[in-house]
């Protein structure tokens, strides 16, 4: 419940404020968003499995975002930022699909 409310609040805040992203954050934000989405899907799967824990979710969310940002940062320093970003997005997208498939199997039995 509070998750839905928080999401709505965040979207409205983003629409109202229209913030300009600082240049140093620009490469990291899209990856961070995808990493956070991965954490959210993982949390949804945990709920369906009955093993959800607020603590685990918060830690996985934050660590996902940080690790993703770190990988992109390292990639940029090594000169392979674009490729590493693509790799991170691919891996996260695969995890999201896997989690979504697990949720679907549990909820719909298919």
């Amino acid at each position: 419940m509070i998750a839905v409310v928080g999401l709505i609040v965040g979207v409205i805040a983003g629409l109202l404020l229209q913030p300009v992203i600082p240049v140093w954050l620009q490469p990291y934000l899209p990856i961070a968003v995808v990493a956070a989405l991965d954490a959210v899907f993982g949390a949804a799967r945990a709920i369906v499995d009955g093993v959800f824990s607020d603590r685990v979710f918060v830690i996985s969310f934050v660590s996902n975002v940080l690790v993703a940002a770190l990988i992109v940062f390292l990639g940029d320093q090594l000169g392979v930022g674009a490729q590493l970003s693509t790799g991170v997005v691919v891996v996260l997208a695969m995890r999201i699909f896997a989690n979504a498939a697990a949720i679907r199997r549990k909820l719909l039995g298919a």
Partner: protein
Amino acid sequence: MSTNRSWVRVRGALRPKRDASHLLVGALFALLGFGIVVQVGAADDNLATARQSDLVGILDDLSVRSDRLQAELRDLSATRDRLRSGSAGDEAALAEAERRAAVLGILAGTVAAEGPGLVVTIDGVDDAALLLDTVQELRDAGAEAIQLGDVRVVASTYFTQAPDGRVQVDGVTVDGPYEFRVIGDPRTLAAALRIPGGVLDSVRGGGGDATVVEQETVTVDALRALSAAGYAQPAP
């Protein structure tokens, strides 16, 4: 049933709860929503924020595409030029063919013709040889189209004297007065007919009467059906 239990868990998760860590979850979701919206807004002007390597890739893509489009443009321009010059050539060939068809049609008597010329009327003499002489004289003087009565005079035209004394042209009986309609240079034609001992003298010597009228516009509208050549073929 595990599916049912799962639904119960989902419903339980949606129930409002109030403790600190739950509020933290809400805050993270707010952050996520915020990030998504900001990123979606920023993705619109992504060129300004793209990495150098991305920009190089985009530039590369664009120049490759530009090269391809340039090549296509060249191809299409060449095709257009070829078609345009081809159609111009076709038009010229068509105009030339039509001109030749008109000239040959007048020669063969398959099309009507008009132009400056003479109207020659011969009366009182029923002599096929005299009429043939007249035609020869007119041809020598450059007549381009000749009509006698209702019969077009062409290369194969012949004049005969029927047993009853009437004149036949190409097998068609023609009665006097004989009216020639001739297209050509009127002065030359008239002079050719008037030379001493020529056609007009012969008519008058035979007891007949002839008049020559020069006209600005003479219409030769008798036509002749074209018969296919039975033996002659164009030599290569």
